[in-house]
């Protein structure tokens, strides 16, 4: 693809199937980095319903798509979260960000972020955070490059319940 004339807009309910297609690609990519993030391919309907709710809930969730000629080349889902014990009170937490391979290195990620920042301005939200698997080096490089810094850690492990089981 030579050049893209990408437009960013809020995701619509009619985008749902294409939207979930990209979400599943992103989840599979996370699974490549860490086996704790294996995509649940069996739960496609559940995932579809979840993201349909997200798209509908514009107050708490900002769901964006980057499109050209009605085709989705990228998406972002950010949650508006209340920080009850901290100031400022609200943050936008980016949970999902995915760009189709042929649209990468073409500024689509920044276009999605710009749109998100505009939305945050409208809502007077000044803190943005991004959540991604620690081993996803592509995400790590992307956010580091645009000035994000590590502000927390989530540790995890798999518990083998059969190991300590008493007969």
């Amino acid at each position: 693809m030579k050049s893209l004339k990408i437009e960013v807009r809020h995701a619509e309910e009619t985008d749902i199937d294409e939207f979930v297609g990209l979400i599943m690609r992103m989840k599979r990519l996370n699974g490549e980095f860490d086996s704790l993030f294996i995509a649940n391919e069996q739960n496609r309907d559940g995932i579809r319903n979840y993201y349909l709710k997200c798209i509908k809930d514009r107050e708490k969730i900002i769901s964006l798509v980057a499109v050209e000629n009605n085709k989705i080349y990228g998406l972002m889902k950010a949650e508006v979260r209340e920080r009850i014990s901290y100031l400022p009170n609200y943050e936008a937490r980016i949970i999902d960000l995915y760009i189709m391979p042929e649209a990468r290195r073409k500024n689509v990620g920044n276009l999605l972020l710009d749109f998100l920042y505009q939305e945050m301005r409208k809502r007077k939200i000044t803190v943005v955070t991004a959540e991604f698997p620690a081993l996803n080096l592509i995400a790590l490089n992307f956010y580091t490059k645009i000035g994000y810094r590590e502000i927390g850690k989530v540790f995890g492990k798999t518990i083998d319940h059969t190991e300590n089981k008493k007969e």
Partner: protein
Amino acid sequence: MNNEERTQQFNKLAVEYSRYFKGKIRNYPNVPVSSINDFSYWYTPGVAEVSRVINKNPEESLELTGRWNSIGIITDGTRVLGLGNVGPEAAMPVMEGKAMIFNLFGGVNAVPLPMRVSSKEEFIKVAMALEPSFGGYNLEDIESPKCFFILKELQQKLAIPAWHDDQLGTACIILAGLINSLRIAGKKIEDATVSLIGSGAANIAAAHLMIEAGFKPQNIIMVDSHGILEPEREDLDKIMISNPWKYDLALVTNGERRKGDIKESMHGTDVVVSAAKSQPGLIKPEWVKNMEKDPAIFALANPLPEIWPDDAKAAGAKVVATGRSDFPNQINNSLVFPGVFRGVLDARSKGVNFRIMVKASYEIANYVKDPTPDHIVPTMGDWELYPRVASSVAVATVEEKLARKVDSKEGYYRTASEIIRVNRENFEKMMKMNIVEQLPEVNK
């Protein structure tokens, strides 16, 4: 004797001869030693001064020692021939054979160096550590995609050429064959459409080299075991992580965004280059019929090509090439690496790249004066080929500002011809004098 019986006979002889000769190459002093006094300059005390000179200027090691004409054949034995991961010890006979070809056809002193390493990082570390001993490296029989990472790193970090023959040698001879195939069909490189079946080391390198030579990326369609490569394929992110070289090609090739498998990839194309499964019938004659007029089929799997040449011809192929010596047009990287290394060593080159390789491919293609459908590439017996490739490569290293020792094309040609001729004559003398023994009688 049928093919199978013949192969078994060769296998048996190979083991028996190897047990008899105990190694295919050996070292002799290169300087006259008539008496013990000669050691005063070849060894102590005089040699210390040579060390001091090199210590002041390490580049002198390329003029005052055999480093200028020595290369390391480095492998971890993870993908040896069709055998797979047989380990470094079992890789040795193959590396020795390669060293023999380097010497006989290129006059190059090649040292087989199978290494016991457990990671690509360790491989790179060992190669870096041994750099002062060699004028170049030939990487051999390393599994994909590890071979891409290692080659890229070594090409960036070393001040001597690093070459992976399974990628670059094969790509070079494929391109040479394609140049003449298109000449025969009266087609231009910039218009030619190509289906590359199999996306292993050879075809990935071939695609990159073809693009460097002027093939339009959008006119190339690549196929792997999951079908045609295209940017929307579901497994593309996985490929991005495991094989970034294949991923990059998936994004720039296949301008039509064709989907499907081998059949769909071949439809209407001018050329098929298949380096896939050794399985006649993988390419079907009816798919050849659906290609452009006068197509070229390179069915390179060994020992059995993906389609038999007769079947491909009957289906309309103008040119058919295989990896075998018993059919016309053997696509054999032995036509490439001896001359390429002769050239980079004579120029004391700091590296080798795709632009230099394109020059080598054209030299090989032009060597065939009047290409015909049954004669698109030279054969190994064309001794004149190697110095010609060497001089083209050496001049290209000058153009690329990689050469430490600059000469004219004629000068490089004279140097290469002389080295190869003298080396060959010396070997023939050693055989005549029985210094290199004749083959022993074995129970065949």
